[in-house]
């Protein structure tokens, strides 16, 4: 196996792992979304590299021109759709972070969990008093 010749896969894998790690390790929700974004971009690069043919040009048919080697356009076109999906996910994600920031006053995951726990304890206490 020619590892150096498959370098584009290593780029994809590295990006994907950086994205994954960011999602898991970062406390800030915006950074989590950025990690998610990186993760999606790595897959887009993976698809783009699938369609590449060595020495190939853009797949444009010119009347009368000699037949040429061209890259497979389909994976590239598919990624236009995937980019749109990625943008939509990022937009919804960031909108949720804005709402979370508004409702909790923070967008750090640990602090959010703390607040939720306090809420729950408070609700349990209120219920206990109500019954007593």
């Amino acid at each position, binding site marked *: 196996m020619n590892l150096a010749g498959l370098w584009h896969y290593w780029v994809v894998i590295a990006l994907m792992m950086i994205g994954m790690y960011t*999602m898991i390790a970062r406390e800030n*929700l915006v950074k*989590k979304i950025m990690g*998610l974004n990186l*993760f*999606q971009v790595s*897959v887009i690069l*993976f*698809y783009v590299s*699938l369609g590449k043919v060595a020495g190939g040009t853009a797949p444009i048919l010119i009347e009368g021109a000699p037949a040429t080697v061209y890259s497979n356009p*389909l*994976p590239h076109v*598919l990624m236009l*759709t*995937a980019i749109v*999906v990625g943008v*939509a*996910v990022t937009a*919804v*994600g960031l909108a*949720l*972070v804005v*709402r*979370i920031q508004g*409702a*909790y006053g923070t967008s750090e995951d640990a602090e*959010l969990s703390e607040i*939720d726990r306090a*809420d729950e304890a408070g609700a349990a206490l209120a*219920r206990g008093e109500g*019954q007593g």
Partner: protein
Amino acid sequence: MIEHLPVLQIVIPLLGAPVCLLLRARGAVLVFATAVAWCTFAIALASIGIVLEQGEVVYALGGWVAPLGIEYRIDLLNAFVITVVSGVGAIVLPIGPGIHGHTVSASREYLYYAAFLLCMAGLLGVAITGDIFNVFVFLEISSLAAYTLVALGNQRRALRAAFSYLVMGTIGGTFVLIGIGFLYQMTGTLNMADLARLLPAVLDNRAVHAAFAFLLVGVGIKLAVFPLHQWLPNAYTYAPPAVSAFLAATATKVAYYLLLRLVFTIFGIGFVFGALGIAPLLQVISLAAMFIGALAAINQTDLKRLLAYSSVSQIGYMTLGLSFGSVAGLTGGLVHVANHALMKGGMFLAVACIVARTGTSAIADLRGLGRRMPATMAAFALGGLGLIGVPLTVGFISKWYLVLAAIEAGQMLLAFAILVSSLLAAVYVWRVVEVAWFQEPLQSAPHGEAPLRLLIPTWVLIGASLYFGVATDLTAGIAAQAAEQLLEVAR
């Protein structure tokens, strides 16, 4: 007109969503969205009739024949899933976001209906299309709409639930995309039927194995199969009650359909169960889901969270049915798709009725509600009997087929496990019944039932679950035929 039914199935709800944005006026949007949803359901019923009569329907989008173009391909399996999704959608949509439990202001209700229709269009699209990249696109349409709907819950934790649903769901969707990429790399096609034809030649390739692994995990996240279910309890607990009813009844079911498609149509049973041998793995996962889900449900203090964990457990039954790879097992899994949609949809709607009157879904606050809201609690209890699998309810039919499949496969232990986990379901249903009927009502407990707008859909779903428990030839009959078709193709 008739030959264009497959595409209308998707186009009508998909275009209905932006029209909702234009209409804006509350009453007009409600009437319009309801009409769209029922129209979609009518088309689904017509489709299933055509498929039963003539067999598979193939529709080439824009006249471009597959594998160049995208095709919609409806066989009994899709038609069955489409009917369930659009039927539940048509019943749940007119309720609107519910009476309490959401943050949708009256002037913005049109956005709710738009998101609902988009979610429905996405789910139907996943089920109907014969193109695997199309599956990814529709999956993301439905998921994005679902994140939005979950975020409308009235507690601020709904936002966090929607956020983690978004992160998990996107990882799942992206995994599906990677898997599709590998498949395309190996075969040069995205058409499912074409993939099924070309894949057997390259099944030994490591890239195909990787593709299957990515697709399985990706779909597994959307299906919330144990241990990838972490997003589900919070999402269902904090979403508006009507949204929980719709998502619990449809979203995971469509993911289950996708799993069946992958395993039986695209990769083939010989590869999945033969070469890879994942049946034992699936069975362990399913059993874990059935027991851990049910045990978690027993320990909940919130009614919606109880139902959500019960969903995790019920998904275990479906994947268990899949793991047998036999007609009886698949029939059990498939019929449970419809049955669970009816029961769980109905039960979540009953919770919506309770929330509408009391403003809370804590089990402790249900005390004596059996006497104050008898129709609502009766619906809940009947749905609960279905979850346990009492004869004359739909749950019994599913479990009958599953136990039959286990005995057929000579795995008495599994058959026994199905029965034991049913007992666990009895425990968590009984907890609610005990509080609602055998305790004195609270001072603050409401007098009178929930409004008819909520009560009627609840009873339609629960009533259907009772009807199909007795008249089994419709659901179980079609499920059995679909299972046979699926296994025939797989051979």
